[in-house]
């Protein structure tokens, strides 16, 4: 089967990004213009509204099953990955062998269900935010 080129009407999606900080708002506005898009000013003009003010909501105290928790060493390795360090650099910082670092990184990726180091850092941050309680 071959693809038949069709006349598709241009798809226009207008997104209103609500940014509270005026400096960031101006930077974002300039980026939108530079990219060849037209900035919208009111929610009425937008098909979707995004906001930087996340309404977290009233939440229950988190509880964990005890499964898949990180060890203190894994948390250190995770912090080092977040700082942009390579395995070799992490080994030097934590004074352990690169082989051990590789072992920890593999364990971290598995526990987080992440494929890349960047994904692991993002997922770990989310996990940490929702699983830290102040007492």
């Amino acid at each position, binding site marked *: 089967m071959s693809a038949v080129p069709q006349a598709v009407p241009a798809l226009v999606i207008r997104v209103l990004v609500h940014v509270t900080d005026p400096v960031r708002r101006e930077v974002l506005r300039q980026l939108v213009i530079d990219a060849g898009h037209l900035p919208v000013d009111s929610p009425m003009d937008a098909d979707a509204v995004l906001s930087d003010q996340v*309404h*977290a*909501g*009233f*939440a*229950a*105290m*988190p*509880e*964990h099953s*005890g499964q898949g*928790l*990180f*060890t*203190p*060493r894994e*948390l250190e390795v995770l912090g080092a990955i977040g700082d942009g360090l390579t395995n070799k650099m992490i080994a030097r910082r934590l004074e352990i062998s690169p082989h051990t670092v590789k072992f920890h990184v593999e364990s971290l990726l598995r526990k987080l269900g992440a494929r890349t180091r960047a994904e692991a850092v993002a997922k770990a941050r989310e996990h*940490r935010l929702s*699983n*830290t*309680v*102040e*007492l």
Partner: protein
Amino acid sequence: MTELLEQFSSELAARTAALQGATAAIRRARERHLSAIVWRPDVVVASEQSLPERDEFELVMPGGTQAAAKLAGRDPGTNIAVLRLSQPASPPVLVPGETQAGALALALGADGTGGVSARLGLVNLAGTQWHSVAGGLIDRRIVLDLRLGRAEEGGPVFSAAGAFLGMSTLGPRARVLVIPAATLERIVPILLKEGRVARGWLGVALHPVAVPDALRETAGQASGMMVMSLAEGGPAAKAGIVAGDIVLSVNDAAASGFRRIAGQFAADSIGRKAALRVIRGGNLLSLDAVIEARPPT
């Protein structure tokens, strides 16, 4: 059939009209508002998480009259804030009632001009008591199967029989929760009297971690809570706890779950000892802290 539907519809409309005197609007900036419950003639209850940090508020009462109110107290633990009206209103008497999963719930809000907004849904879940992340004890876990606008949060929720179930509250992912009437009955008088709800405080941020294999036998447990940060001059800091310590137990309650140790910090814990068993640098340590009252946030 048509008759039945009409009857259902007009009953709901009549109920909404009869109870709308229990809803008020609290003005926010830029033409926005949030909803509140007229709890007693001179007392208004609102959702703490959405109430701006102020001491004086302007309200639009049922019917559209303006009213001034002063903050009487707020409790992030149970998401309850209480305001005192300068002029008494005449709300309908709220008769508390129970509910169960599958029952109907009518959630009312204020439209900001003296009118009412209504939402109808099923009680999606009616469970037992739970702790909020801020440490408050909520008497029942009630989740509603309906959507709620930001401005409608904080309004009263009623059963099909017109009994008062509690205050609507937005939970994570915009789920609609109800702070039960029983929790309001418990907390509102404390807030009117004290302005806040006292809770025990250790001054630490904890994150669950696996105890390293080599220490598992010494620790006697597979998981603990790592101290991520400390409040300067707080009870834990004074007791010598440092960031990176792994807390294994608090007063013999194993630090294997947040709820287990949260139970150690009720209001009556203030002034009592918290015996902490921690791992630091591969060694087991015992440190004693004195629980203090959680400072206002």
